[in-house]
């Protein structure tokens, strides 16, 4: 279902230096390919501040995770 494609799902992330992900779930992070920041909807009741990472894990998988800087917690977002 395409509707759920971008929906963030909670994920367990262990962080290293500079709060950069070191593990995602049970996998270790091999490389941080990209890091970006989204700050939006500050004029609404649901402001959005997310620190995104595009990662390659030791299994060779590409993962996109973000840290919700408003409510806290890590999420994964497939299709992003």
């Amino acid at each position: 279902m395409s509707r759920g494609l971008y929906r963030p799902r909670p994920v367990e992330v262990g962080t290293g230096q500079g709060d950069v992900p070191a593990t995602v779930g049970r996998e270790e992070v091999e490389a941080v390919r990209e890091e970006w920041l989204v700050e939006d909807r500050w004029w609404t009741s649901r402001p959005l501040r997310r620190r995104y990472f595009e990662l390659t894990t030791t299994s060779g998988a590409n993962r996109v995770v973000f840290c919700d800087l408003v409510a806290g917690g890590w999420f994964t977002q497939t299709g992003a």
Partner: protein
Amino acid sequence: MGAGYVELHAHSAYSFLDGASAPEELAAAASMHGYPAVALTDHDGLWGSMEFAHACKGLGMKAITGVELTVAGRHLTLLVENRAGYRNLCRLVTLGHEETRRQTADGRPQNPTVSLEQLERHAEGLICLSGCARDGMLSVPAVSGDLAQAESLGRRLLGAFGRDRLRIELQRPFWRRDRERNRALARIAQRLEVPCVATGNVHCHHPSRARLQDAFVAVRLHSPLDQTEPDRRGNASSAMTSQAEMEWRFRDHPEAAAETARVAERIEFDLTTDLGYRYPGAEDPGADRKLAELCGARLADRYPGRSEETEAAARLDEELRVIRVLGLSGFFLLHHELLELAREVAHEVRGDSSVRALMPPGRGRGSSVSSIVCYLTGLSHIDPIRNKLLLGRFLNEEITALPDIDLDFPRDLREKLIPRVHDRFGRERAALVAAFSTYRWRGAIRDLGKALGLPAGDVERVARTADVYGDLEDFMGGAADTIGARRARSPRWQALIELCPEAYGLPRHVSQHPGGMVIATEPLIDVCPVQPSAMEGRNLVQWDKDSCADAGFLKIDLLGLGMLSAVERCVEEIARVRDQRIDLSRVPYDDTATYEAIQMAETTGVFQIESRAQMQSLRRTRPENLDDLTVQVALVRPGPIQGGAVHPYIERRKRLREDPGFEIPYLHPALEPALKDTLGVIVFQDQVLEVSTALAGFSAGDAEGLRRAMSRKRSDAAMAVYQQRFVEGAVGRGVDRDIAERVFEQVRGFSGFGFPKAHAAAFGLLAYQSTWLRVHYAPEFLCAAERAADGLLSTRFADPRGTAARDHGAASARQPRGGGVPGRAWARRASRPRIHRRRAGAGDRCAGRRARAWWALRRGRRPGGALWCLPRHARAPGLGRGM
């Protein structure tokens, strides 16, 4: 300047509706972060560059002048390395704006842009950075994967700028493809064998201002924030940040961060000193002699056998000496030349036979009126000897900027004069001064409310309740009262309430100064970019009056004054109706009936003293001569009001009338010479100079600096410096600290706005002359004044055939009772202009009695105690019997 990061790409609010901080804010933030240098690179313009350069200089930083230029639809960052580069940048920006008044196929104005060929022709002296992450000339093809095109464009830039002056620009806005893009750009740099350079593409001075930057983008795109996500920056990382943070951001490209300092170091150009502007006449070695001859010849005409002749000659010698020392003879000759040009234009506009031909083409205002040189060369109509006007405010040996000479003209004459000045000096050498429309409460509420997607009706209600001149507290309270406290707490309204104060005072778009013109010997486009004005055939320099003054430009204010038009029309009407030729320069200045009208506040429609506040004041101050009227004109202004001068002055005048022996109280005896004429209070700008000289020992240059700090919008810090110097100076001269503080508070209060005495004298004279006409030629004067107020509406729009002009003439001021036009026909004719008078707001001061007042005006009787009334004794021959 050692290694470290220097910001080479920053936008201020002069990147209209893109940057969200004033140049001073950016400079202060850069200084706080410890930058040794910082660049300002607004989009396609240098509007804020002078302001920025002076702000940086004051903070001990090197200001780098630059522009983010649109070249063939893509962006390049250009930095000025030397004088030749500055000249080329000005020419490029001017070229970019050439077509901006033409519309695109979909009816929108064209954005500024230059071609790559134009850039190649003007590359000397400029350092080129390859452009921003989103729209940069190389990053756009690099991001889309077309590295061949990126490299080909890069080679073209390399051909124009060489390896010395081309850098590949890397940015880190924290977008998703940053690393990929920067890797691609770094590869291109390697192939071209040029260094990369890091930039921050700063859009605001602090992260908290990023929300306003978002909102500005929405305003610019005429869309709500919800629909502009792809065009916004996406996060707050485009705020000015520390060197350490920037070095961390570019940890993948440390050489690019280090290159910033190397680029900054090689830049020599300082906008505050290297402009190279010379005003026309400065190069003429015979200018001193010509001016002396011109003035000498007129001195004999103006003061033949008069007791003031010796004093006038001495004053002229002294002024000519100061002018020679300052090298300003050419400046005065140029103004004289302009006045002669105005005389030619006046001759064409007025015609030979018109009674208006008796009148000078224009008249001076402002401090220049205090100069005997201006009086003798025709730039001023006020005799400075007879009116005891001091020269210091206008001209002294310590001035750092050229003095202003402001000239008032009737509107019809000014309309023709401005294009003639363009023609005389050439469009490359004469241009109008720019002005910037800045956000006030109402504009901010409307624009930002729309961007936030708030209901249009509610936004308008809040905007209408906002006090135009109110402070932040008024605005916050007013908004909450209008929409209700609960709604005011909702995120969108809260955002509006928070953003409006941030937007307040920031420039929104370029407009045109009412009449300021800059004239240069060399082409103006070598010293400041020029862009077309909204009015066809006119050009604007990209600097406002303050920046032009800082640049030392010769600025001439050709101002349109409605009352001059009214007075001329009145004189013409008197000649037509009564066959009398009035020469206003010869009317008696001690006319009892005129002063009685002034003292009774029967001044509706006359110049300057017709406001409600003036009328209330007139009955209490009861002016008896031109000197009193000069004070009166200057008294009801924000400066004296905020400085607490009005009530003491009125009270002391009353006491003096009752007891001529009344002694004026002064805060300190040293103030008496300066404040004697205004009964111990500060009414004129000149008195600020005199008070600071008398009490704190300021030099003329110091005092002028204080006056400039007072009159500029961006001067809080400067005022604090002057306060300290004033108080310490006064204490050093034995003045009690408390007294010194109190006097300075009066000076600070005055800083709202006040007239120089010379300006007040010029306006006071026009106030007297217009009252004299009102008293002795009431029907003609009121019709002329009425038409000056709403003439454009009624004659041009309502009545293209021009019959309304007759309707507004004296002959139709009242319904003729003795025949002629039948009653109904007259009523039809009269009703048409009346409607438009209402639209124009004419008669507004009659507050609710407007219709009755207009009717009374026509019938010539007093409208039930209202101030709108014709003098009872006024009778105009041939006007029917209604008076």
